[in-house]
């Protein structure tokens, strides 16, 4: 299929195409904008998770969360300043006082609890204040503790309260030294969503580069000259695809370096690169297929836009589905590879295999389609 004498052809073509891509000022500009976007995303995530907790954000922002208490209730939590208020409407107190939350506690609640009566507290939250979530969590924790205490008192007259309230007794240990930790919400957001997104941006861009490459030749009428060269159609496509995948991987490496620079560790570097490269082959193949049906770059771009939209929905939309198919999702694997120093379970090789097969199939199919459409035109 690939004749030995024709291989220098692929190499030469690849080199030429690579030069074309790198010299294209627009791609460089697009890369620059992507850079700013990536930096912006990371920074916003960091900032957002910082400002929503006064404890975490303490380095950046001096803030403490003020919570009003109506009634006899002790609230002691880190970053919270409790303010006693006279009894009244909690919502009104909220709007007047610049408070993140106001808790209303009915009088004599302890007696009511011991009698076995119903207890209802009212928590008014200023949800236009980003710190109110923190206040909510702190107050809820305090209420849970109080609730437990009351239940304990009630039960103590008849049974061992722990047997009913805390049946499971947990002993916690830690091993290993604690490094400078990133906030939990940030870690989950970053590795769960943002890192796969950032690493997939170059892959999406590469589909566009492939269609530009093929359809661009069609438009500039250099396509016929290219076909006349002593290379098979398939070799031409491979020659075009190699530099595109190479450029994509360079971008991915750049983003990983950017993340590491900010102290966000990305694990399994090589496995990750292989995974993304295989995925990229699939997307490049789809780009070839789209090129087959596009006469102009405008059509090609429309096709790529639809592809990217569908892919984004498939990869990132919060559809509730458990189980097997999701475990093979490449985005899922990217998240796992990037966030776990070592990987248990053997789905890695299977995913590689599946992607490899899929990639080759799509590229082949794309080349066939390209052929078929040309024969139709001629």
């Amino acid at each position, binding site marked *: 299929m690939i004749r030995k004498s024709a291989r220098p052809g692929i190499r030469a073509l690849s080199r030429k195409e690579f030069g074309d891509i790198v010299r294209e000022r627009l791609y460089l500009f697009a890369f620059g904008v992507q850079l700013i976007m990536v930096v912006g995303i990371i920074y916003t995530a960091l900032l957002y998770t910082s400002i929503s907790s006064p404890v975490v954000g303490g380095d950046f922002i001096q803030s403490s969360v003020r919570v009003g208490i109506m009634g006899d209730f002790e609230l002691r939590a880190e970053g919270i300043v409790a303010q006693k208020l006279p009894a009244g409407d909690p919502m009104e107190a909220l709007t007047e006082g610049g408070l993140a939350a106001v808790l209303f506690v009915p009088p004599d609640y302890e007696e009511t609890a011991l009698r076995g009566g119903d207890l209802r507290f009212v928590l008014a939250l200023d*949800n236009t204040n980003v710190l109110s979530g923190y206040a909510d969590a702190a107050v809820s924790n305090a209420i849970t503790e109080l609730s437990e205490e009351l239940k304990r008192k009630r039960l103590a007259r008849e049974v061992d309260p722990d*047997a009913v309230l805390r*049946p*499971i007794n947990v002993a916690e240990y830690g091993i290993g030294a604690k490094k400078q930790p990133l906030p939990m919400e940030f870690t989950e957001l970053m590795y769960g969503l943002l890192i796969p997104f950032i690493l997939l941006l170059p892959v999406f861009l590469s589909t566009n580069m492939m269609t530009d490459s093929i359809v661009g030749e069609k438009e500039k009428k250099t396509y016929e000259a290219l076909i006349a060269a002593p290379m098979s159609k398939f070799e031409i496509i491979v020659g075009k695809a190699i530099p595109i995948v190479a450029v994509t991987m360079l971008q991915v490496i750049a983003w990983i370096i950017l993340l590491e620079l900010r102290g966000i560790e990305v694990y399994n570097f090589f496995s990750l690169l292989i995974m993304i490269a295989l995925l990229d082959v699939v997307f490049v193949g789809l780009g070839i297929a789209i090129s087959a049906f596009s006469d102009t770059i405008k059509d090609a771009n429309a096709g790529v836009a639809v592809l990217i939209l569908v892919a984004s929905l498939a990869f990132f939309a919060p559809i509730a589905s458990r189980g097997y198919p999701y475990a093979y999702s490449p985005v899922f694997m990217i998240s796992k590879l990037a966030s776990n120093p070592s990987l248990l379970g053997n789905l890695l090789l299977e995913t590689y295999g599946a992607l490899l097969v899929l990639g080759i199939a799509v590229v082949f199919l794309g080349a066939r389609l390209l052929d078929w459409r040309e024969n139709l035109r001629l």
Partner: protein
Amino acid sequence: MSLYAIAKKELLEILYDRKYVLGFTLQFLLLLAVVPAFSSYLSEEGFRLPAPTMRNFVPIGVVDHSEKSDVLIAALRENERLELFFFDSFPTRELEEGGIAAVVEIPPAYDERALLRLPVAVTIASSSIKGDSAKDAIERSIADASSRLGERRKAILQVDTKEIVVERRFLRPVVVEREGSRYSSFFLGYLIPIVLFFPIFTSSSLVVDALVGEKERKTIEMLLAAPARRSDIVSGKFIAIYGLITLQVLAWLAALRLEGIAIANLWAVFLLLAAVNLALTATAFVLATFSRTVKEASIALMLLYVAVFVFLITSLTMEFFNPQRFLEFSPFNSISRLALGETVSAPSYAISLVALGAYSVIAMWASSALMGRDDIIFGPRPELMSLLSDGMEDILARLHGRPILGGAAVAFVSGVVAIPLSLALEIASGVLLLYVFGYGEFAIIAMILIFALIEESLKPIALYALQARRHWLGDARTAALFGSMAGLSFFILENAFVVLLLLFSFPSLIFRILTLRTGSTLLLHLITSGIVGVGISRGRFHYFLALATSIHAAYNLTLLMAFL
């Protein structure tokens, strides 16, 4: 050929393109399918939005030495964040290598059927990035199992406890009731505005094809040969495309209505949306007109829409989590509030409409002016600076014989052009610096220096344009004068901006801040820009720029020290 005829021809051309119609129908169907799914997903009060990849995020090991731990194991399995791996003995190696972030050990003595306390040991790898998440998720599952076991035991022991019920009330309605249906305000105020902006994002290919596509296919020459004014050609295309976008928005609003999603203040929302689309389409036109190839135009428009989208998301996020009064001026936020049924102050609505309209008129004028140039249509494309120079020469020619006015006009244009450019560059460089160096002294000082450089280079931008055409900046005094005027123009516009911002966040401080700024930075701008002006005239631009930058930076640094 009248404007009407041109617009009609353009419209028909687009509609006859099967691919456009196909694309439109596809999007429409997508909308009809996806939006209701999201609507029902978000219709509860408190929702979490997990990405699918957050499922099974934390790998943990479970060592179960007892056979009677069904409730606990079930609780662990049900926790979506956990991925469980079962081991026969304590998996020290996996824990150290980082394959798992924690281990839950259930000793043989654990028996859920007994009524004793049940021991469980949890070991967390503190050095793992997922350590905190593991601790949190495991604690939740254990609490869950505890409460289930507790209920069981209460039934056996025949005792009862009551929970404290917490009734939550939110200042800003989290759930909106309208016409009998309940929606999360997040859905109506956040997702719906995003959905409504889709037509504009998908229209870029239309704009590109209409302007640059014709240029590349050479069909534009035929069009120009027709008896129509060039400005009419541009306007005709604009009317056709904008008309289609507006129809698309109407179709989407109708579709949402049919789905039973009740958007309040429908006409007010539509009007503001139409104004935003007007401004965006006009901007797209300018960019497309200036582009040489379809590829260039596509990328430029893609970048424009990405920037708009980011701005849209950011301002809506701020609206929901930390609203400030000045956000009223962002049309996106106004659209969001109106859609929710909240009110927006009449002045801010009017200002948005007027500002967007004025901007659109200016952008369309620019687009027509560009199309009027033969070098834009046939090539070679002029440099931006060259365009600026032409513009300056034009102004001066019109004000021939009134050099003071001419100079003032040039200086004014300088400020107007410099402000958005310097803002964009400052934001980009600021973000990069903060990212690489973190929020600290070094970053702040670097930002002061770089911002000073950016501003000083850009303030006299119109003067470079003039100097390139060898105009009258020969005399050092005149040059200094015009430099200073450029600086003055920049200062005035910058402060106008600040005043507007202050007007709606801290109105009481306006007078004080304005006096402070006038008293100090005015003098600074006059001096530094004057210096740069002299530098331009002398041809020894770099040294003078360095001097001006140093003065500007030194000034800001001194202020910073004093402030601290």
